[in-house]
């Protein structure tokens, strides 16, 4: 597995002054782990973005903190973004020990095309996008690649148990969980303009949730008293 490196520096700016840091082209980050104290960091936003695209959530990143000789091996745990432009707001790194097993969500990637979907006989319905695995950090895999060319007819499916993974990796996701299935095409919706017009003119009132006891409850209570 190719090693991805990121140069970061310790961060002294915390709290409300973070806005100025972001405007200057840096992204705040934090490194934490099981056997280490949390460290506030900052990284160049362009460099960080390149690393995030390359590494994803299941590739180790060697964090080179300015002033420290040894790099810290870490996984990208969480990314916070500005909701509209998608600019990075904050990144969490999870420091790992190379001798301890870790649990990681690995993305599922698809290759090839399903003959059933290509012929418009059905559509592909996807289950989970990721599977959970447990392994040593050194044995991590970037992604699980699935070939869709085996899905020949409607009803054909691939489950987690069908995935081929290295023996060093233990799958934690339920083996019966669906990954991808060919399902029937959706039923075409027939428009009913008359019904819609009626619905528009008479807006049905929703039921109001009443406080206190209902009549049935009161009756039941009275019976109990008797």
């Amino acid at each position, binding site marked *: 597995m190719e090693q991805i490196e990121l140069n970061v520096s310790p961060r002294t700016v915390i709290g409300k002054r973070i806005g100025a840091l972001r405007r200057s082209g840096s992204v705040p980050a934090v490194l934490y782990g099981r056997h280490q104290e949390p460290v506030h960091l900052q990284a160049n936003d362009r460099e960080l973005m390149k690393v995030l695209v*390359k590494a*994803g*959530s299941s590739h180790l990143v060697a964090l080179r903190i300015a002033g420290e000789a040894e790099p810290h091996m870490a996984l990208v745990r969480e990314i916070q973004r500005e*909701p*509209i432009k998608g600019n990075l707001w904050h990144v969490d790194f999870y420091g790992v020990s190379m001798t301890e097993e870790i649990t990681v969500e690995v*993305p599922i990637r698809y290759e090839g095309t399903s003959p059933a979907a290509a012929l418009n006989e059905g559509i592909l319905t996807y289950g989970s996008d990721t599977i959970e695995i447990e392994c040593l950090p050194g044995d991590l895999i970037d992604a699980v690649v699935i070939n869709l060319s085996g899905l020949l007819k409607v009803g054909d499916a691939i489950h987690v148990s069908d995935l081929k993974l290295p023996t060093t990796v233990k799958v934690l996701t339920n083996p019966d969980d669906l990954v991808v299935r060919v399902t029937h095409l*959706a039923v075409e919706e027939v428009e009913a303009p008359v019904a819609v017009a009626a619905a528009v003119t008479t807006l049905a009132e929703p039921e*109001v949730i009443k406080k206190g006891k209902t009549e049935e409850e009161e009756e039941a209570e009275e019976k109990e008293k008797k």
Partner: protein
Amino acid sequence: MLMPKRVKWRKQQRGRMTGKELRGVEVVFGDLGLQALEPCWMTQRQIEAARRAIVRFVKRRGKMWVRVFPDKPVTQKAAETRMGKGKGAVDHYVAVIKPGRIILEIGGLDEATAKEALHLASYKLSIKTQIIGRRDLMAGGGE
């Protein structure tokens, strides 16, 4: 049309729509999504019209998700009524939309078709929107 089945209170105060949305801002179910860039009260009719525009265009292919629900009642006084005498009757329901909110998602289609479908749906809405993809934390993609 979309509207609540049960409500705790029949009428609501208007409220404010300041700031950006912080939840429901990522495409999570489909491949592409329609994101609001302005705040608005999106009526149940607008949501239904946008949904129908997509259904008509994609026919039986793909899958669509409506990520907003009109749960806020809007009242309207009857025409030529003098002021006072209490709040008007519930006229329709709206979804409160703030910038960043994903309104619709679409999946299982090629990119060009999905974009065209969302583009057609955007004409049914009264605000500026943008089409965005997934920003997953996934190696080699999503960014």
